[in-house]
């Protein structure tokens, strides 16, 4: 059986299509890679920010500081003996 000429013409077109798709896929991969890198950097920056904020919370809520604020600034006092019977 002999293929018509028009059928043979599809071969280079098909190859061209595949090549174009390959280029497009490479471009998509490249773009995605850039995006992933940006997101990773952002994630790392956020993790660092969380660490800093956690540290700040720990520093602001340290018992010695709370005691100082309660006693000096708010004029609070520790409970007297037997004042706390149902903690």
């Amino acid at each position: 059986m002999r293929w018509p000429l028009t059928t043979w013409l599809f071969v280079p077109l098909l190859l061209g299509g595949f090549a174009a798709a390959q280029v497009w896929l490479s471009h998509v991969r490249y773009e995605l890679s850039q995006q992933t890198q940006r997101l990773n950097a952002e994630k790392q920056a956020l993790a660092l920010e969380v660490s800093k904020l956690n540290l700040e919370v720990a520093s602001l809520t340290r018992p010695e500081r709370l005691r100082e604020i309660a006693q000096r600034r708010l004029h609070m006092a520790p409970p007297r003996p037997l004042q706390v019977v149902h903690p």
Partner: protein
Amino acid sequence: MSINHSFTGRGDTRQQVFIRRRIEAVAGLLALGIALLAIRAVDLQWLQSQTLTDKAEKQRYRQYTAVAPRGTITDSHGRILAESIEVPSIAAMADEISPDSIGELAAALQMPETSLRRKLHGRKGFVWLARQVTPAMADAVARLNIDGVRQETEWRRYHPLGPETGHLLGFVGIDGHGLEGLERTLDARLSGEPGIRQVRRDARGHSLPGGIWLRDPVPGQDIRLTIDASIQSIAYAALADGIRKQHAKGGSVVIMRPDGAVLAMASWPGYNPNNFREYRPSQWRNRAITDVFEPGSTLKPFTVAAALMSGRWQPDSKIFCENGAMQVADHVIHDDHSEGWLDIAGLLAKSSNIGAAKLALDIGVDPMYRMLHDIGFGQRSHIGLSGESPGIVLPMERWGPVETANIAFGQGIAVTPLQLATAFSVLANGGLHVQPRLIETPDIGEKQSSRRIMPKSVARHIVNMLEYATSAEGTGSKAVPAGYRVAGKTGTAQKPDRYGSYNSDKFTAVFAGIAPADNPQLVIAVVIDEPQKSIYGGQVAAPVFRNIAANVLPYLGIAATSEREQPWHTMRIADNADPVPGHSTTGLSLREVRRLASRMGLHLKVHGSGWVRRQQPASLNGLEAGDMLEVWLDD
């Protein structure tokens, strides 16, 4: 014609030769060229192959280090005790900095210009100028935009509780490795390992997909401690307050749960681990595990426990305390207050050295030594801190009568505050020894093991006696917070000097105890080094114990009870007063009433001898373990 032909033929031949020569020359040149190309190809593809491949790879690939931040240390509630964050550091290429810009750079770095010039003088290449600086300082330097100055980032460790956890956690050096405390002993787990990732780059230097890990990063492990930040803070503040009041040299506190979990470990004087270089190395040591002291009378409960376990002594046994002085070999033992006959509870309440010495001499060296060894004296607890002292316990073969008598009341032996707290946790645990632990993270902490040191009944008897020792008649009355029952023992020990004898004016005041006595939740050991106002454990260390217990017990949800102070309770006893025999000790002998009191866990106060004539309270109904029964006897 022939001549012409001949002439023409010679010319053709010469022409052909010339052409052939030219062809041969060109062919030779071509062959040479091909040969040179082949040689070059061999050179490039074979001889220089590796070098050129490496160069090409370097252009196409890039490696970068993925940092593994140090793990976080948290308390038992997840509150952060140590955290690492990235901070800027300032560096320079020394030979690229213009001498004219050193002045303004020094001003931005807040350092003298001379020291900056010294750092850069005669140097080439990379030089650290200021490490781990504040972001504000880094911004100030960046604004100057000086050629050769660069900003790097480094990890810095922060301890938000500062001095309160300084001795326990230790600190981390500039290279990110722990140098003291838990930061040092847990360094391998906390550090992690940085990873290396390789990526392909395009012509513009952008990373392409498909990177590979040459070495996977291992993140530092987070570690959860048994420490409670609030209790640690309470302990540190109470210790500091007690030391200030007594103008003492130092001290330490250990707070444990009976199951071995250390809730707080504080030492004074403190230091701030966030700027540890400003303190002397001697101030870095964790006194709760490194410093040993003679436990003094706080050892007596264990002498009594050994005596009760020997079977030769009962809780109701009486012992004659020689009216304050007793000779042992060539040595005379004294009591602070002369005592005559005392029962065992009285021995602990009055803290008689002679009574304790007599018990130890009676039961012998072996049971005493075994008891001290079993409760953990003379050996490291392996709690996970470096520099831990094993304490000092003489080998058994060196125990003569004088040594045995002295050790019975806590002289000639040295322990750490942690060892003392662990020993008292045996009493709180009903006779079980549990290894103390600081780390709660399950995969790190060793499996908790316990072993029985003494029968539960003996431990219970000792706790009852120690509760009596904190009553108004004992030496430890100042250790009891209102509304709670405490079982504990005071200790006052002379400090040995460098020549092996005792200092007459340097003492260690100690209190170790259990709270609440009826349902032990806390074991607290307080050691005050060289107090100046008073030397006695009951005056110096016991109030610190009370301060801590009064704050920590409500925090743990353990309610104070005001039962004894409410009128309706008195009414209940009065209502239940019943003269029917069986509810009264009237007519019983002293021995019988001692047995009864011991069985019910009552504190017995005896007047006279013979048979019971009357008792207070009138009925035994309503009395509970730890209550006082007073009896009057006549012959």
